């Protein structure tokens, strides 16, 4: 269970938001809404501990994520705005590395299965730099299939550059994760049908 | 725990406001006494004649450049350890004065070296370490200025100050080893028998430099505090008040 108390975030000289509170229970789906530049990505980075808040706290299972860094990061999957790929490596190598570096024991065959499932079966051994923007995002998203044991998913604009079919499959994967007791926090411009209730948090409501 | 009362920027701001002029006056008094001793009370040196009087600012400058860098490392450690923003402000406020004294130590050392050794720069162990310390100061100031985000600049500056401080003794002893290897034992700038008046003069000038550094740092930290805490109510009021006058 993720709780946020009285969170404030300063970007350079501008106060993005303050007194932001949120409580995410198991099985919940949260969409972070707000105009561009209001601090959605900054909020997500605060939630996963990449950035330290000016004031306020983020708690995971009751303890602040600064104290419980290791166990929090074991339970978290964060997919940033840019897909974390290296252009010289193939999608298979990138995905396998991403899991191993995060500490998940995942075999190359699981990775290639995940990649084929997300529609990159033919591109397994091409260097990532030849892939299209949409294909690169899907390599990043393929990690979702391999991170089901991580309850908290924080996804920054997961639906961008995806065609309709891929977006529908992604929505289905997210809904399935939430229904099995996972928590998903994501930002998105387009509406997506998850077949379940989606709670929304408007960051603009907390802006200074 | 009123110790932490002073660690809040607001209370420290007013405290620094009262202390800065006090240390300024102390510095002025000590400097006049020190200068009187260095020029009028201290006798002419048998070996070096009058030029040794440069010692009365060369040695204090060299000491202060070292003391201020270690103070910066101290505040950096506290800032990183306890996360108190004020400690980072102190480290940032100290850097320019430290670099100034470091340059002065090199400048006066060179002007002293010319008549004594015949060259402005003789790769003497102490002077070479002083030069490297100046590079450490430039590195710290350049890094903190290159980073826009003030919070990241503070912490990055703190890390390089600590890494630098850990390396100072290593640099000093390796330069000393390297110097004695290539040049035999260097002429010790302060070897000439220290008449007591000379020693007293030097100590008073060192204390004057110390008081001066504190006064300047306190004034500089006040404007850093205002800059960084401008969103708080007390700082906004102070800015309106002082801004109108300035």
């Amino acid at each position, binding site marked *: 269970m993720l709780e946020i108390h009285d969170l404030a975030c300063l970007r350079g000289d501008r106060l993005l938001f303050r007194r932001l509170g949120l409580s995410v229970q198991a099985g919940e789906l949260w969409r972070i809404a707000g105009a561009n530049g209001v601090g959605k990505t900054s909020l997500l980075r605060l939630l996963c501990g990449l950035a330290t808040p000016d004031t306020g706290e983020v708690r995971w299972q009751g303890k602040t994520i600064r104290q419980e860094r290791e166990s929090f990061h074991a339970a978290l999957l964060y997919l*940033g705005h840019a897909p974390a790929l290296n252009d*010289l490596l193939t999608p298979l190598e990138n995905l396998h590395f991403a899991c191993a*570096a995060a500490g998940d024991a995942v075999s190359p065959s699981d990775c290639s299965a995940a990649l084929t499932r997300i529609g990159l079966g033919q591109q397994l051994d091409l260097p990532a730099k030849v892939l299209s923007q949409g294909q690169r995002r899907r390599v990043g998203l393929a990690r979702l299939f391999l991170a089901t044991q991580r309850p908290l998913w924080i996804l920054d604009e997961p639906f961008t550059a995806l065609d309709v079919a891929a977006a529908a499959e992604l929505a289905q994967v997210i809904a399935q994760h939430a229904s099995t007791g996972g928590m998903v926090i994501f930002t998105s411009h387009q509406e997506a049908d998850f077949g379940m209730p989606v709670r929304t948090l408007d960051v603009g409501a907390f802006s200074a | 725990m009123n110790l932490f009362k002073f660690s809040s920027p607001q209370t420290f701001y007013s405290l620094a406001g009262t202390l800065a002029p006090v240390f300024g006056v102390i510095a002025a008094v000590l400097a006049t006494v020190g200068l009187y001793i260095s020029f009028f009370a201290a006798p002419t040196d048998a070996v070096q004649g009058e030029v040794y009087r440069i010692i009365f600012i060369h040695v204090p400058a060299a000491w202060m450049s070292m003391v201020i860098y270690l103070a910066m490392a101290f505040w950096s450690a506290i800032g990183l350890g306890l996360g108190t923003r004020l400690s980072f402000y102190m480290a940032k406020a100290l850097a320019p004065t430290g670099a100034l004294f470091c340059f002065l130590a090199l400048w006066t050392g060179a002007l002293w070296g010319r008549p004594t050794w015949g060259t402005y720069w003789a790769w003497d162990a102490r002077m070479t370490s002083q030069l490297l310390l100046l590079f450490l100061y430039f590195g710290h100031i350049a890094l903190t200025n290159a980073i826009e985000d003030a919070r990241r600049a503070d912490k990055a500056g703190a890390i390089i100050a600590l890494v630098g401080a850990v390396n100072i003794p290593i640099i000093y002893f390796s330069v000393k080893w390297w110097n004695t290897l290539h040049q035999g034992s260097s002429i010790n700038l302060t070897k000439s028998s220290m008449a007591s008046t000379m020693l007293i003069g030097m100590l008073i000038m060192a204390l004057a430099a110390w008081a001066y550094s504190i006064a300047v740092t306190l004034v500089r930290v006040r404007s850093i505090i205002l800059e960084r805490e401008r969103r708080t109510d007390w700082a906004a009021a102070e800015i309106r008040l002082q801004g109108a006058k300035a």
Partner: protein
Amino acid sequence: MNNAFIAVLRRDLLLAWRSRADLLVALSFFVVVASLFPFGVGSDPDQLRAIGPGVVWVAALLATLLALPRMFSQDFDSGVLEQLLLSQEPPVAWVSAKIAAHWLSTGLPLVVVSPLLALMYGLEPGAIKVLALALLIGTPILSLIGAIGAALTLGLRGAGSLLALLVLPLMVPVLIFGAGSVDAWASGIGLRAHLLLMGGGLFAALALAPSASAAALRITMD
């Protein structure tokens, strides 16, 4: 613990192999810089023999400096660094792996090529071996110290010259004892003291630099 270490080490070495052209460029920089000095100093053999070790060491410092930004910048731009910071294993693990991979791909080649330059400066066989040994112990320290600077200057404009200003003064002791060990051997004093001191420096750097770099990276990504 070793999961992330091995994963990052293997990947970085694989990447180094795939972009080995860049590594050859960095290595050729080392050779070019070292071979410039005779044009400035003259080709008198005795003089070259005297300045040889020092020149090779300064060139090694500059070559390491040139290759340092690459240690983190590629992963910083692609977002991989963010994912690494979120790994459940402590950052010291994968930062050490990155530094080790950086040394293996850029530091070790300097050691391998140094005999070639030593010959160019007319050093006798014994001196060539001592120089290579000193570089073998010294270049990891350069990578370790450089990693802190690379982490601090990540993503800054003018990071190259800022990095040089930050780390070169800290590398002076390694330069002194590295170049000094060849002179000490040549003059019969023996190089044990120099190499022992550098060994001590290496262990100190191994203990402190990775955690300092990890802290710097966390601050940079804040």
